[in-house]
């Protein structure tokens, strides 16, 4: 699975993207976020308040109960501020 991080999630985590193999117990977006929180200080800091984290799977917005598949592109980012 490809993971992408944008804006302050990228700067806090320290990388823009990575390729990961999901543990079998991680089946949806919510479980992915909880699993990522345990991967180090940068992840814990970036993901401490999930109310300001938005998630897109395959470039479309999803909710935290969205089911994940192995080839998904998952992006984590703050609420958008374009225009």
């Amino acid at each position, binding site marked *: 699975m490809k993971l992408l991080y*944008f*804006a*302050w999630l990228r700067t806090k985590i320290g990388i823009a993207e990575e390729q990961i193999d999901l543990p079998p117990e991680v089946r949806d977006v919510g479980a992915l976020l909880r699993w990522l929180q345990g991967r180090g200080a940068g992840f814990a800091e970036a993901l401490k308040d999930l109310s300001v984290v938005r998630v897109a799977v395959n*470039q479309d917005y999803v909710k935290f109960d969205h089911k994940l598949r192995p080839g998904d592109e998952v*992006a984590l980012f*703050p609420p*958008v*501020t*374009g*225009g």
Partner: protein
Amino acid sequence: MIRVQREDFDIGAEIAALTAGRHAIGGIASFIGLVRDVAGDTTVGAMTLEHYPGMTETKLAEIEAEAHRRWRLDASLIIHRYGRLEPGDRIVLVLTAAAHREAALASCGFLIDWLKTQAPFWKLEETGSGDRWVAARDADEDAARRWRDEQGQ
């Protein structure tokens, strides 16, 4: 039409290109977003716009298609820039063209309101006390929500 680009755009040239040969168009509405040099009481020296290539284009195209579904439009254009921009620089252009003003003006307002809450862009401001990410505004979410239950014409 959708364009996501680093370069500036020429408003007159874009309007001319959008309307060339289309003489059913009776009016064009435009929104041009500019970089401001203040945010609250802080002076902003510049800002850098980051985006999610691929999803940005997809979301802008969806928003544009929704405007065409709600209003009878002859043409439309959204240009959004990314990269480092300075105060006074143009960030975004929305053009909508229709037979009559109501559809052009309303759909232009809809597009910029929805774009602000749907298109994956983020702004990093350079200030005297360091760089800071711009937080999303509740007012923008409220402006977008206003259109949820409204239909076009």
